[in-house]
């Protein structure tokens, strides 16, 4: 499982940023998870919640944003990948959703751009 080590890396980063900014505490940590990575958002949340206990980020709220790829076609047509992930408000939890999409304009296979990130977007500190 690679979520644990990724969470450790995120936490190391958060702690050093907090220290650089002379933080007394961390209120929240916002992490963006690309939908095309094999990083499981629930697992990374669980790992971060476990790791925040004995340091400056104790009690911090963990916020996970899923980052969707943009679907692009050679013909120029673009679409937010997020639209593909919902059927009747229910989310489709499958990486394949983005890999085999036909362009509604011209029928070619679309290309997913982005969605490969795991990014510490922001941290909210108390000084």
């Amino acid at each position, binding site marked *: *499982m*690679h979520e*644990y*080590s*990724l969470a450790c*890396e*995120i936490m190391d*980063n958060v702690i050093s*940023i907090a220290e650089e*900014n002379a*933080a*007394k505490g961390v*209120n929240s940590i916002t992490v963006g998870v*690309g939908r*095309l*990575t*094999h*990083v499981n958002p629930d697992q990374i949340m669980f790992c971060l919640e476990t790791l925040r206990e004995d340091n400056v980020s104790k009690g911090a709220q963990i916020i996970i944003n899923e980052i969707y790829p943009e679907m692009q076609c050679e013909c120029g047509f673009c679409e937010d990948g997020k639209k593909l992930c919902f059927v009747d408000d229910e989310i489709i939890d499958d*990486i*394949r959703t983005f*890999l*085999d999409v036909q362009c509604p304009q011209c029928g070619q296979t679309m290309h997913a751009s982005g969605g*490969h*990130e*795991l*990014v*510490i*977007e*922001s*941290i*909210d*500190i*108390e*000084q």
Partner: protein
Amino acid sequence: MLMHVINVGHDVLKANDKLAAKNQKLLDKNGVLAINFMGAIGSGKTTIIEKTVENLGDKYRLAVIAGDVIADMDAGRIAKLGVTTIPVNTGRECHLDAKLVEKALKSIDLADVDILLMENVGNLICPADYKLGEHLRVVVVSVTEGDDIVLKHPMIFKHTDIAIIHKKDLAEAVFASAEKMEADARHLNPDIPVLKTSIHDAQSMDKWFSTISSMADKCRENRKD
């Protein structure tokens, strides 16, 4: 009490990619062709690496980085063939990453190597997210994993350079179709070369050996003296 939002924007996975690019630069400088072997446990990665060492060992100087979660059994198998083998224990990790490879590269004399074979940890999921600095990503699957294995792991097939469908001689016995697996790989990655191999079919293995020989020759030509 002062609240303060800091925009960080640090991409943890991209940090690995950057380190991988650095590894590749080092390999390029030494004219080394680096191959990342990814594949499930039991797919035949180690066997293919052994056969590659046996077959190309006279013509090229080879080295192997053998990733394993805890043991160094695979490394032991390869080292027996008399080739430089660096075992990398990934601990609780499910993949090799650029940092582990950077460290391993320090214990190899790269000026003395033409082809570096890197055996990743046995799974088809996590290694897909991590570049190591390789020039060639090779996915090895075998028919014994079931012929839906390709479609179950689309990302690794999407982002690979060569797919090897191994143990093709066993297909009938396990009710699997190597042709279906090949078609699935092409569906995900239309231009990908697919090799259907078996160690009992010398011709199929020769195709693989000649594929990487010609790539290694190109790398050697580009070596910066």
